[in-house]
């Protein structure tokens, strides 16, 4: 039941994302985020510092991703007895590590796209 609910939710979200992709809103809708107060912060301050900060922080994100993956590997209970605290931290970091891996692949993807000139 829970899995089905999550699947429906993901389906709805993916379909909506595809719709916005296919529609390709006019170029001036890029200003969308500067108009809507309800959207997240960053787009309202897309200045030079913001853009350069995005590039600089990618290195730290990649390092954090590697660190988390190493910790997850070392604290794997199949290697033997693991302290309760380590298990608790491992459980808490698992979704974050998965998220960071997704972000890491996106970073790599965008880098490749920029090298290929897309």
């Amino acid at each position: 039941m829970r899995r089905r609910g999550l699947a429906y939710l993901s389906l709805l979200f993916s379909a909506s994302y595809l719709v916005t992709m296919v529609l390709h809103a006019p170029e001036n809708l890029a200003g969308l985020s500067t108009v809507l107060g309800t959207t997240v912060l960053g787009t309202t301050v897309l200045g030079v510092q913001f853009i350069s900060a995005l590039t600089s922080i990618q290195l730290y994100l990649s390092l954090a991703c590697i660190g988390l993956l190493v910790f997850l590997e070392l604290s794997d209970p199949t290697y033997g007895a693991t302290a309760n605290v380590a298990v608790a931290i491992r459980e808490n970091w698992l979704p974050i590590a998965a998220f960071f891996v997704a972000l890491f692949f996106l970073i790599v993807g965008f880098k490749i796209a920029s090298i290929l000139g897309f």
Partner: protein
Amino acid sequence: MSRLERARQLAGAFAAATVVVGYAGWLALSSLLGLGPRTLVSFSILFVTVTFAMSLLFRLDRRRPLLVVVVVTSVLLLQELLLSGEYAFYGFLTALTAMVAFPLAGGLIHRDKQLSYVLQVSGLVFASRVAYVPFPGRFLNISIGLPSLYLLIFLMCLLFISVKKVDLKGLGFQKGMIPLPVQVLTGLSIGVLSGSTEYILLKPPPISPVGDPLHFTIYILFMMMILVSFPEEILFRGLLQKSMSQVLPPWVAIQMTSVQFGLMHLGWRNPIEVLFAFSMGLIMGFLFWKSESLVAPILLHGVGNVVMFSLASVTNIPDGLVYALIASSAASTVPALYLLRKHMPIDYWSSSMEIRRRREKVIRLLEKST
């Protein structure tokens, strides 16, 4: 519910209202003197300090969870101030560190499961900023940029829900305690009211859509009703408020979640927008608390955004028309609120913590008798 408890909760509600009115007065005064970056920083610090002081004043017996929420909110305030200023890099670094550090702290206090859960969920709030990191600047400036960003925020929520096996019903994906038509009516009417009020408060520069108007409308509807509302409401109401209400009284949880929701709007560099988001957070939090469903908050959030953007896309719209829209939506809100009050659970002021305490007392008595 004891008289003391009731008095305390009424005092809490009164305090929240006083805070909003107080800020409004302070803002009116500072706008007369001229709003600048210093006003924004001083407002933000005052905003967080006073709201927490109010909560602490009325709930001294919950110091530990409150302290945790204070720390999380202070870090969020720091991050938002850095991001909206010239130190965006340090803002991102703060977000990245907090996203890893709060779940780590949650792991260290794993014996206190509820507080540990609050810390884990708090880490997710910072994910909405970390989600910007992989995108090149130019990508964020095209129309697909914002949907992609929200797709990542949604992905993070989905990962958390899956790994932590969070119950979807508990998250608010259910019909809830109030009839569905009443929830829909409330969400729609307050949504239109909030969108038009926000437009009047912010007066954004007009955007004139080009191309097919149908495409434009569909894009806005999907973008605002699903891609923006769903992740934000799942994050702030379904996860954050729900987790806080396990360790704090519900009205304090609503207040604290709304403070964080308001702070996330600091990028506007406009204290009125922060205050507006805070007030809307209080309303959406209250609706979620009473209905135990995300239907009304998601509708309210989405419709508010759609109305606000639609008004902004109409060039030279007369103020009189917007005021007429505000008046008509306010009029439709009255029957919606009446119906809401009528169908609200009878135990109006009691908190889920108190219900749990009562339930535990009954179980103890039953165990004794057997």
